[in-house]
């Protein structure tokens, strides 16, 4: 990210920033055209798309395993990603296991 109040004077950096801005504008413009319901649904669609890509990779890496085992590997990867996301933020509450 670049603070636009500062000019680095580097033409290459300016060109990259210009391209990044175009992509950013396109994302923002597209999001404004969606209805609230379409936006709500899109989060799920993107999750499922990402899972399909990951499963393809897992199937190619471990062709000898069953589809159930591929799914378990995917779920483990998701769990590991969460652990990394949440490191230092969440901790178990020791004295209240029941709600």
């Amino acid at each position, binding site marked *: *990210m*670049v*603070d*636009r*109040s500062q000019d680095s004077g580097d033409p290459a950096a300016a060109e990259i920033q210009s391209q990044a*801005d175009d992509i*950013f*504008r396109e*994302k*923002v413009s*597209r*999001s*404004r055209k*969606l209805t*609230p*319901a379409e*936006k*709500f*649904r*899109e*989060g*799920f669609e*993107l*999750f*499922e*798309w*990402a*899972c399909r890509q990951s499963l393809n990779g897992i199937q190619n890496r471990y062709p000898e395993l069953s589809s159930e085992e591929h*799914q378990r590997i*995917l*779920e483990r990867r*998701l*769990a590991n*990603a*969460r652990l990394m*996301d949440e490191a*230092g*933020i*969440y*901790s*178990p*509450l020791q004295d*209240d*296991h*029941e*709600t």
Partner: protein
Amino acid sequence: MKPEAAVVYTLQILEELKIPYMVVGSFSSNQYGPSRSTKDADLVIQHSSDTFRELIRRLEPEIKVDRQISFESVTGTARNIATVVKTGFQIEFFRLSKDSHDLRRFERRKKIHFEGSSIWMQTVEDVVITKLRWILNADRPRDLADVREVLSASRDVIDWDYVNQWTDQHGTSDLLASIQTTLPAELQPDRD
């Protein structure tokens, strides 16, 4: 059960049990900016022990709720995690805390319409305020990206008086100003 069906089902059960809730986290920032993939749906709920036990009973076995409560250190909120079986997708139930902004954003939640029903969602101002607080305390890159995108996509509808009041309290006003300087000029919000 697919993640979308599981979340819609969960929200229906919350309505039936009269448990007030609001959608927060990525699904709320997706409402006000470009969407991104997320592996969980975050819900703030206001409940008693009895109603939560009934919620668990109604969700299982397809949505499995971990009884272990975890504690989040940024705003002091407790949560239970539910997993949509065989998908890796999670639904996180955050208890409405005593944090003054948590209480206020819950009062201000608004409805969006989704397939013939309504979903309670936190407002765009509260997405920005909450994300800024997380950037300050947890420094997660995706929160910064979310704030930039939400500010740009929703800049015409943001109640700046409300945002400024809370960023002053949370010590995030300078952070907000610095993020705004990184936006393309025509997408920078007009805060006057």
